[in-house]
């Protein structure tokens, strides 16, 4: 008879419990509040996210497995959880005005954002295929609905349907791979699995499992050739959701990727490294070259986000502690600059302008100098120009590749960054050199100004003084998969 769950297990999932409670409070408050007071829901959501962030504090240096090895509470999970919560908070700040302009009701919207965050947190902490999969589903289902939240918009509907169908398909592939892993090892726990797979490198079924899981995860991080859904979904979804999708969902999928491959399949590292090596090169190149031809900024950022998944994969390929550190650093840095860029697009959304076409940016420097400067900074950071955070992130990624002996990967990464500069700088040219302007004056609400200020500050500070982030990320990367197995083998 299996042992029950202990009270201490519930102590360790305190942050998840707080977040769940917050989500439910939002749902109930939506019904109780009068219609003209619904704007207060964004505050409730922010408080829930803040409380969750605060409840992470006792686990700053915890390193345990709880609930019979289903969930790990370690610094690796902590790093990602902080990233998700910050990204969710920025998304909420961005959404306030956007929802007003689009005329959508905030209650379910904020509830779903909180649930997506919950799913991500479970994914980052999961060291068991069951937990990881349930977390992934919770996140994915929330995003399917959020992508189609603007119901009158046909593009939003299309995005939701496309994302749902391709997401379900990719989950099927991922599950097939996971079921093979379970069948071959007799356990769903990744750490136990790793010990059982030692010496099975030649097993063709295991190779098949690795290929299937790589393909399934590839869909989630939008790596070429599994990226077809990304541009349409990113373009059609509500802009704050696009931002959250391209940051939160991507980071969570990378957390899952690192857990599955580094913790569960170290024996197969030769195979998955090779697969990710090829995926990384193709993803960077296709993403960047496709982005060059885009005139819609959300679409361009979608392709740029695909390219960035390629860069981050470099760290995974390197696979060393340094590679994982670089992956974590880049994901955090990328979150701020990507969220910031989308915040500027949200700022341009007004009653009379959609604001996501390149021409909507012309003359922004004259009309809103702060937004233009922020966008300039985000574009330079995404392109990898010092002294921004994007430069430091790329520097660590490429140096981790060189460190591990993947010289060509680093070279191709640098060449790709050069290509990407073309389309990032084009936005800057429109903002600063073009004169003709469209529509009414784009004004920042206080919430949007705060969003931009946070993103600008993070992009600059992490670029100039990266040491702190590096130390935190390194300590987090060290806890990945090096905890001795304390639970009994199941």
């Amino acid at each position, binding site marked *: 008879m*299996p*042992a029950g769950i202990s009270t201490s*297990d519930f102590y360790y999932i305190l942050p998840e419990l707080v977040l769940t409670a917050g989500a439910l409070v939002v749902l109930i408050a939506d019904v109780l509040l009068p219609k003209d007071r619904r704007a207060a829901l964004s505050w409730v959501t922010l408080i829930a996210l803040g409380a969750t962030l605060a409840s992470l504090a006792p686990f700053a240096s915890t390193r345990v497995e709880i*609930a*019979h090895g289903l969930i790990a509470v370690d610094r690796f999970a902590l790093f990602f959880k902080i990233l998700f919560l910050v990204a969710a908070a920025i998304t909420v700040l961005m959404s306030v005005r956007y929802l007003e302009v689009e005329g*959508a009701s905030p209650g*379910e919207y904020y509830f779903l954002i909180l649930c997506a965050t919950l799913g991500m947190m479970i994914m980052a902490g999961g060291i068991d295929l069951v*937990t990881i999969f349930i977390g992934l*589903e919770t996140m994915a*289902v929330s995003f399917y609905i959020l992508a189609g939240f603007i119901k009158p918009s046909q593009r939003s509907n299309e995005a939701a349907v496309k994302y749902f169908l391709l997401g379900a398909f990719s989950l099927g592939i991922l599950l097939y791979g996971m079921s093979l892993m379970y069948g071959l090892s007799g356990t769903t726990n990744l750490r136990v699995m790793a010990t059982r797979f030692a010496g099975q490198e030649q097993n063709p079924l295991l190779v098949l499992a690795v290929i299937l899981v790589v393909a399934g995860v590839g869909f989630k991080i939008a790596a070429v050739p599994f990226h077809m859904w990304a541009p349409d979904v990113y373009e059609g979804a509500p802009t704050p959701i696009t931002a959250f999708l391209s940051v939160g969902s991507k980071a969570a999928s990378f957390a899952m990727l690192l857990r599955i491959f580094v913790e569960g399949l170290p024996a197969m590292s030769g195979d998955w490294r090779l697969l990710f090596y090829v995926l990384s090169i193709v993803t960077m190149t296709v993403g960047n070259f496709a982005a060059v031809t885009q005139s819609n900024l959300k679409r361009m950022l979608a392709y740029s986000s695909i390219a960035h998944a390629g860069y981050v994969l470099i760290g995974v390929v390197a696979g060393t502690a340094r590679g994982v550190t670089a992956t974590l650093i880049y994901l955090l840095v990328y979150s701020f600059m990507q969220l910031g860029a989308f915040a500027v697009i949200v700022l341009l959304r007004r009653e009379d302008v959609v604001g996501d076409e390149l021409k909507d940016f012309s003359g922004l420097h004259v009309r809103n100098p702060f937004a233009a400067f922020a966008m300039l900074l985000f574009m330079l950071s995404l392109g990898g120009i010092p002294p921004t955070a994007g430069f430091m992130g790329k520097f660590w990624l490429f140096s981790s590749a060189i460190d591990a002996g993947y010289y060509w990967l680093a070279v191709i990464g640098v060449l790709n960054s050069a290509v990407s500069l073309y389309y990032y700088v084009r936005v800057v040219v429109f903002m600063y050199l073009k004169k003709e302007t469209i529509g009414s004056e784009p004004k920042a609400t206080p919430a949007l100004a705060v969003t931009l200020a946070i993103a600008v500050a993070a992009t600059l500070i992490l670029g100039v003084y990266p040491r702190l982030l590096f130390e935190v990320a390194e300590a987090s990367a060290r806890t990945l998969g090096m905890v001795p197995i304390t639970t009994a083998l199941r």
Partner: protein
Amino acid sequence: MAQAIAFYFIAACILGFAVLVVTTRDTVHSVLFLVLDFLFVAALYVLLGAQFLAAIQVLVYAGGIVVLYLFVVMLVNLKRPPEAHEDPHRRTKLGFGLAAAVLLELGAIAVYGSVNPAAPMPATPAIPVSGNTEQVGWLLYTSYLIPFEIASMLLLVAMIGAIVLAKREL
């Protein structure tokens, strides 16, 4: 050996019906093939000794979900291809013949049963302490309690999502 044969037969049926689900042009037929597919998946569970899962599979999937599918298919009233309306292959007589055969068989069994009353049943063996359902219950509510609870959040999300999408005015 017998188990292997059964497995491969069931697996082939599952795959075959799955292919039919996506290749059939008539939506109602497609849904009905899906029912067959689910039933064979249930058979696979029985083969693996997971009777509880098999029962759930039949009740929830074949019984509940697919009936909903059928409702949806009929509500949206997809136009059937024209040849489906006048089915040249309809064999009314064969259907009546088969029904008559079944009726005859049932009658024969009833008559036979009343003539030769059944021998008293051997005493049922003691119910094992830990049955299939109990084992699943134990696992779900002890070791897998946390994923189980997260799954409830997942269902809540799906429910809210359905309401959001179906609500006329947001």
